[in-house]
């Protein structure tokens, strides 16, 4: 194992090289952990929904509570119009949450610590939300860039700022998640490296830091998944209820 804190983010191919035309889409360790996350979600929810008892079992309660959490989140931020998008938001929240949480286990790979993965998700959300906005409001969706109650001479400036902020949504959404995940794991690795290099005498302080940081990271793993989902809801709200 390298002591390089960035080594944990290396992506390498597992199995044969697969290519689609000229593009290399080989199965990597990142793909493996995406698959494990997805299977874990499906497994948990499959077991949780197997028995439909009136008084829920623990795992059933887990599924129902997550359902209620996401349902409430969507209802509070985007209103009742967003109901058809509930499965998407739910999948998104669960996928990001499980990827983050699996990354907290030692020797695992954190899928969401790669900008390209989070950017792919964020870009898909951005494109989807923009399409939903134009379908629902037609050209009226462009009113999103014109806030009400702005003096007319400031309007060009404001519109430019609004457009830039709208276009930077996928970037901010993806960078937020990616940076949090990468930073946390790098920190853990750096402190872990200090434990080894300082040895038995001085290693206890960084070790206690690592323990504390692990707790913090688990909190952040949940929080970032929640933030990712809730920001998607907020963008969806703009597209569905144009009330800027």
């Amino acid at each position: 194992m390298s002591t390089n804190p960035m080594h944990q983010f290396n992506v390498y191919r597992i199995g044969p090289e697969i290519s689609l035309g000229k593009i290399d889409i080989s199965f990597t360790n990142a793909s493996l952990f995406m698959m494990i996350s997805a299977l874990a979600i499906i497994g948990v929810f499959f077991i949780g929904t197997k028995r439909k008892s009136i008084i829920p079992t623990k795992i059933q309660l887990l599924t129902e509570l997550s359902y209620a959490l996401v349902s409430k989140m969507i209802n509070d931020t985007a209103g009742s119009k967003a109901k058809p998008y509930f499965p998407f938001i739910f999948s998104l929240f669960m996928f990001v949450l499980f990827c983050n949480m699996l990354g907290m286990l030692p020797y695992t790979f954190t899928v969401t610590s790669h900008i390209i993965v989070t950017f792919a998700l964020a870009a898909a959300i951005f494109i989807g939300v923009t399409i939903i906005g134009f379908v629902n409001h037609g050209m009226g969706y462009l009113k999103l860039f014109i806030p009400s109650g702005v003096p007319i001479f400031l309007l060009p400036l404001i519109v430019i700022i609004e457009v830039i902020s709208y276009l930077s949504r996928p970037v901010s959404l993806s960078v937020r998640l990616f940076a949090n995940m990468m930073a946390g794991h790098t920190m853990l690795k750096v402190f872990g490296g200090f434990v080894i290099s300082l040895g038995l005498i001085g290693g206890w302080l960084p070790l206690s830091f690592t323990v504390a940081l692990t707790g913090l990271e688990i909190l952040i793993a949940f929080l970032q998944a929640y933030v990712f989902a809730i920001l998607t809801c907020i963008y969806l709200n703009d597209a569905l209820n144009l009330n800027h």
Partner: protein
Amino acid sequence: MVQNYLKFIGFFTLLSGKCFGAEGGMPQLNPDYWFSQIFWVIFIFGILYVILWRKILPKINENLENRKSQILNDLDDAQKFKDQSEEKLSEYNKIINQAKQEAKKILADTRKKINRDIGNKKNQFNLEINKEIKNAEKEIKTLKLSSIKDINKIAVEISSEIVRKIVGTEVNTSNVTAIVEDISKKEITKHL
């Protein structure tokens, strides 16, 4: 929080000095597997989305709805049973009241009847007693009348005897009888 993190990271990356060294910096910025990542994340997320959307979430929703309706049903049933028991209770109270009133009526009727009977018996008894008294009075009267006759006879005998003894002569009984009867007729009204 993020800024602090990044500051920390910057500090430690500068400290270790290895990150942008031999291995080529951040692996995230190495474009070799970007398309693979994009492909797999969309593919796997898509499958996950479809499975959750089609299979899992309807089940959870159905179960939650079932529970809600079950609880509502149970509450309804409870309300129904409560209403029923209240109805039964009011019926019971009504029956008890009816029974009480009937008992009261029966009691009053019986009392009235007994009173009437007693009155009847009393009247009858009174009538009988009166009759008896009248009979007795009649008897007494007849007895008195007959005793007066006897008394008269005795009086005649005694007075004739007295006269004979005192005077020494026989007295005409018819005269004595006439006198006695005259007196007794005068005096009889005092005793009858």
